[in-house]
């Protein structure tokens, strides 16, 4: 009897996924057909009031903000993991670890608000531009993905047999050389998985970045330019969109879906290969 109950409960989560997928595709697909796939994905102008539905600037926005976040967050995260696993005394480690988990617990909207009050004026003051920019989004997201990158990298390094490091040092390498030459390459697939998961999280973020990106619909020309991502586009226009425009937003959702599923598949493939 309980077996059937579990089965039905499991089915319900899959059906939620199926329902959402079908809903999004049914609402969004017609407009991709109407506007044309290439005009939709590669169109440069988003102006629903005039019937133009090109999302390319938003794709560029998503890609640049996410890559920026990865470029900032991944090296810091990996260095932090290495510090925690290899150099930190136990007391410091026991302080760092929960502190980083706390970072993961901060709601996205709080990140966005903090970014608006703190990061945006800094950028405006010292780097120029309106401050609302790709860079602001990248900085916020870099901080948000740190817990993911750090914890998975840490696990990958800790999973290595201690003889790897001992063996390298026994051959005459010092600690840092041993880490660089042996530990990091050995933990590579775990680190790559951490990076991909971090990127997946960054691409899906909306609330954290909607306040700091500036939301301009044009193609950005520098990291100090304001920009829109696929997610913030939906977030901003959702409130008043109707008819074709609302369908276009669903179609944006389809594109997002596809991208995130690809990323997840890639992460799974890479971690399985180990």
């Amino acid at each position, binding site marked *: 009897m309980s077996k059937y109950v579990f089965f039905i409960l499991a089915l319900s989560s899959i059906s939620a996924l199926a329902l959402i997928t079908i809903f999004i595709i049914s609402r969004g697909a017609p407009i991709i057909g109407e506007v044309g796939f290439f005009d939709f994905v590669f169109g440069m102008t988003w102006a629903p009031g005039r019937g133009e539905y090109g999302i390319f600037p938003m794709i560029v926005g998503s890609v640049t903000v996410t890559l920026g976040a990865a470029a900032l967050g991944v090296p810091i995260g990996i260095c932090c993991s290495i510090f925690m696993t290899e150099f930190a005394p136990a007391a410091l480690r026991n302080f760092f670890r929960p502190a980083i988990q706390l970072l993961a617990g901060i709601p996205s909207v709080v990140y966005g608000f903090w970014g608006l009050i703190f990061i945006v004026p800094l950028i405006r003051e010292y780097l120029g531009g309106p401050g609302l920019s790709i860079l602001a989004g990248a900085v916020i997201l870099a901080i948000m993905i740190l817990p993911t990158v750090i914890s998975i990298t840490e696990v990958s390094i800790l999973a290595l047999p201690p003889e790897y490091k001992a063996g390298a040092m*026994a051959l005459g390498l010092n600690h840092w050389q041993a880490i660089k030459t042996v530990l990091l390459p050995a933990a590579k697939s775990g680190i790559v998985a951490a990076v991909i998961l971090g990127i997946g999280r960054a691409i899906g973020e909306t609330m954290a970045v909607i306040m700091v990106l500036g939301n301009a619909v044009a193609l950005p020309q520098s990291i100090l330019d304001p920009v829109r991502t696929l997610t913030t586009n939906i977030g901003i226009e959702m409130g008043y969109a109707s008819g074709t425009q609302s369908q276009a937003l669903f179609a944006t959702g389809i594109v997002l879906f596809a991208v995130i599923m690809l990323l997840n598949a890639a992460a799974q493939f890479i971690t399985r290969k180990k």
Partner: protein
Amino acid sequence: MDYKIKIEAFKFFYGREQVINGIDLNIPKNGIFSLLGPAKSGITTMLRAVNRLSDIVPGARMEGSILLDGKNINDADVNVAELRRRVGIVFDVPAPLPMSVYENVAFGPKLLKKGKAEIRALVEESLQTAALWDDVKDRLNTPAQSLSGGQQQRLCIARVLALKPEVILLDRPCSGLDPISTAKIEESLIQLKELYTIVIAPHNVQQAVRISDRAAFMLSGDLIEEGANTEIFSNPVHKRTSDYITGRFG
């Protein structure tokens, strides 16, 4: 007799915990010296102290001295990297580096910035001595991970040999290996003992009996007894030694 390694009044601590309680031990040059004893006797710690690999454990502390060719290895002017090349170590778990077979053995010589031709010669020579050359000569560029357990362990021995050490430390090198691999390794060691000082912690008494020239018995951080092969295995002085050797505990 010419002592390669002299251990004097040696104590070792991990933080507050004392694991070695004052040991005096002399290890002669060349030949196979076994360090026997049940688990948690401090044997691994002792071995690793000889090439100062124990340094990397946080909270590690020692008293007393270890002399290599008469010089204290813990003196301030000792180059640790060089010490570890002179005193190589093979662990109980085969730990090939995540590289090809060739790269693994070439790793040490490359660090010493030797020329390509010299490295190639060293690699072949080391693999021959470790009785692995025939197995891998056609697949030097395959990942080291693809070798069997016994082959990986011999690879680790070759890796150490490539640095032309003077002492080779082995910590239960054959644990987990099948009898044939074990026999091959023991064969290599018996040949190596002519030129190298070998200190081994065997994983059972029978192995010690088979290959050692001298042996020492450690129990819970103390040195109970040491002596030549012929004496200690047939006529041990202490009761605890004979109990361990005859398998009454272990």
